[in-house]
């Protein structure tokens, strides 16, 4: 059992707490020992630098995107026109491309990742679960440019020759599967993203499922539940964490740059067809910052960067919170095998 009750405060500590004023001297030098004070100060500075970097980043981007903010205001988010020569900048095609490629990636990756994670935690013998789990983690560490190269030379031709024609033939009546089949476009971008985020989602879901107490599985088994029914109990227990894992994958997909840039076609347009080239926020930043000559052009790109930063920051924050909530609720786990 966890003892949640904090230590009873001594009268002196209670007085100090009632003052509620933060005392930097107590924070940095709680022991009064000079060595300890120096040590703590250095560590404090290290932690503080990280916070400072984040603040500077947001500040710099906000300041530098001011010209664009002034020129286009809210219309920046809704305009479809991206014309550097005319000085017209609208973010909608990039937002569309980013959202659609990420959703497509999730659509493919979530069932796959759940399947792998459930297999690893609930079904696979330990001798298999360890190496496969290790492999999953290795996949997450492959540089994205390598995925991109593979996407251009292997995945795109394969999709162009086999998958895309079949989709056009059988599902061509849907607007998503009409248009030119080139192998380069939103569809390929979504699939490469799916491949890249599958290891991440799998790894987190696996940890979430492993954190569900054995006692929950035993409770289900003891009532005559099958393996499948027990797995559903485990999934219910880990629901928040699984949602977190999916959102974490979404965050990665939204921010992913290199591999997507290499296969998505890089054309600022909005088309219902998944076969058409598209463009993401991250890709346009990578492609165009070197040629951004005018102040407004650069400022528009920086505003895009700010949008991407805030969105991924929020998405990742929410995801971490959800995963954390499962790990901590599961704290009172018991195996019940004593005696």
């Amino acid at each position, binding site marked *: 059992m966890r003892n949640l009750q904090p230590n009873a405060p001594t009268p002196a500590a209670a007085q100090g707490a009632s003052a509620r004023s933060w005392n930097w001297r107590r924070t940095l030098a709680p022991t009064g020992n000079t060595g300890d004070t120096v040590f703590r100060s250095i560590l404090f500075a290290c932690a503080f630098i990280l916070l400072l970097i984040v603040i500077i980043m947001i500040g710099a981007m906000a300041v530098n995107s001011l010209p664009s903010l002034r020129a286009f205001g809210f219309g920046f988010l809704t305009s479809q026109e991206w014309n550097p020569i005319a000085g017209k900048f609208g973010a909608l095609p990039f937002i569309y491309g980013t959202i659609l490629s990420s959703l497509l990636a999730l659509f493919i990756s979530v069932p796959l990742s759940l399947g792998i994670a459930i297999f690893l935690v609930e079904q696979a013998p330990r001798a298999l679960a360890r190496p496969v789990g290790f492999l999953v983690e290795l996949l997450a560490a492959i540089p994205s440019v390598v995925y991109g190269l593979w996407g251009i030379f292997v995945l795109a031709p394969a999709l162009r020759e086999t998958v895309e024609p079949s989709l056009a033939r059988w599902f061509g009546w849907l607007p998503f599967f009409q248009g030119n089949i080139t192998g380069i476009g939103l569809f390929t971008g979504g699939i490469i993203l799916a491949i890249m985020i599958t290891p991440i989602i799998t790894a987190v879901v696996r940890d979430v499922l492993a954190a569900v107490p054995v006692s929950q599985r035993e409770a289900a088994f003891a009532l005559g539940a099958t393996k499948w029914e027990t797995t559903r109990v485990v999934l219910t227990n880990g629901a928040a964490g699984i949602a977190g894992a999916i959102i974490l994958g979404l965050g990665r997909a939204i921010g992913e740059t290199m591999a997507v840039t290499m296969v998505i076609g890089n054309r600022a347009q909005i088309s219902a067809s998944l076969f058409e080239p598209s463009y993401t926020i991250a890709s346009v930043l990578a492609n165009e910052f070197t040629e951004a000559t005018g102040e407004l052009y650069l400022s528009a790109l920086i505003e895009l960067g700010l949008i991407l930063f805030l969105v991924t920051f929020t998405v990742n924050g929410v995801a971490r919170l959800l995963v954390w909530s499962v790990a901590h609720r599961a704290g009172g786990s*018991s195996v019940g095998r004593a005696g």
Partner: protein
Amino acid sequence: MATPTSTTASVKSATETMQERTRAFENDRESRVAAKVSVRELDFFYGRAQALHKISLDVGSQIVMAFIGPSGCGKSTFLRTLNRMNDTIPGTRVEGSVQIDGQDIYAPGTDVVELRRRVGMVFQKSNPFPKSIFDNVAYGLRINKLTSSKTELSDRVEEALTNAALWPEVKDRLKASALSLSGGQQQRLCIARALAVRPEVILMDEPASALDPIATQKIEELIVELKRQYTIVIVTHNMQQAARVSDETAFFWLGKLVEVNSTEQMFTNPNEKLTEDYITGRFG
């Protein structure tokens, strides 16, 4: 067996021995058929470590049998062999036989899911699902498709909660989360959940060890009450508890079954010196 060189006398004695054995076997078979749970020569291994040695034991119908013994003596492990709960732990192995109503539960082709519906279990630490009180009790009924209508389902849930002496406390908040109940209530909810599928045998693994004295008393009263309908096997560290609730007691020590006896006999005049030493607190 008689050998060609044996004398008439020895042939006779051999025949007698055989007849005796046959009789013993038949007595044994009768007792096994009469018993609800019948275990013979059970060995259990965690990997290479042998946790149980040649356990033979009968549990009669509609009685409470308590397992006592020091920590690590194998009583929980043994309890978990009775509904094959140890199957869920990788690397475990069972030898010997466990029969329930004369059927060997370790025979190939045994439906373990059906077995666990017939042999319910309550764990040391209450483990309600993070669902509503109603859904917790209804869980076993739903997955086993034991009810045909919503009314029947809620009737069975009410019946189970009533039998677990929890109904008056929760009847107005069946939709509340099971995790909002107190520790003692959660454990009674787990008992209700086990009762709902109407098992024949209920295994309880130290069901009151995490509870305060009042909640413990309620659970004990419940066990005595449930004995009318069910066969109950309870593991306990608490010898007073064993004395209070059980009809028969089995004493385990170092993976072996030292003595099985009526509880009264066990606590007043045990057959084995070891049992007496344990009960009087000389070790353990």
